[in-house]
């Protein structure tokens, strides 16, 4: 029998995963906000440099990072709402699994089309190459 390292053998419950993801996505969004306030400041101070910085969003890595930002924002928002709901209405604790999986359903339903919109310049040329677009 294969013995897994202890880190992998431990099976975290929903609440712990939610907490870890909330923290990671929060720190990621925080880092983006720092950069974003600095870049928007350039609009007044150095518009040319601003245009050059924003051109990064046109690149393929830029598009993927944009999707990651959107995913972090969406997860953090939905999970935050779930926390507030349970805080204000403690009886919801009984349905915590439903709330957790429900928030993932919303994440997929909203996030996948959103991701496809952002990544359109990536997949549209491929479709056109295949003669489907």
């Amino acid at each position, binding site marked *: 029998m294969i013995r897994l390292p202890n880190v992998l053998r431990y099976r975290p419950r929903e609440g712990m995963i939610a907490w870890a993801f909330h923290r990671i996505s*929060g720190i990621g969004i925080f880092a983006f906000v720092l950069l974003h*306030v*600095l870049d928007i400041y*350039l609009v007044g101070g150095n*518009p040319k440099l601003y245009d050059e910085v924003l051109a990064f*969003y046109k690149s393929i890595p830029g598009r993927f990072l944009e999707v990651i930002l959107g995913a972090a*924002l969406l997860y953090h928002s939905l999970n*935050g709402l779930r926390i507030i709901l349970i805080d204000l209405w403690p009886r919801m604790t009984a349905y915590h699994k439903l709330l957790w999986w429900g928030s993932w359903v919303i994440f997929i339903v909203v996030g996948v089309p959103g991701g496809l*919109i952002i990544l359109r310049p990536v997949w549209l040329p491929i479709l056109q190459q295949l003669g489907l677009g």
Partner: protein
Amino acid sequence: MRPRGSRREVFVWYTMRVSGLMLFVLALAHFSILHFIYDPGAQTADFIASQRWNQFFWRAFDWLLLMNVLLHGFLGVRTVVVDYIHRPAWRDFTLLLLYTTAVLLLIIGTQVILTLPSATAAQ
């Protein structure tokens, strides 16, 4: 769970929830408009001056978003700092750095929203 104990921590707890709810609307709307309706790859300084910020409403909207994001983001990172940095001197130093950054972002963010001349769209 609302913290028991110091009045300050209870206040922080409420502030996180109120600003979080504000951000649920403000941040998601801001992201949807600027990433789904418009494309950030096409957002030049001219676009900001002549379209995004050519109305008082959108400047006020983005400023309100900035206020909430600074409150929520910096109080959130404060929690993370307090969780992981235990040595009092280091903790105080990191928190000082954090609050200084917040004030700096508040100043430059407010400045650009207030002072950027709005232009009419260059057609």
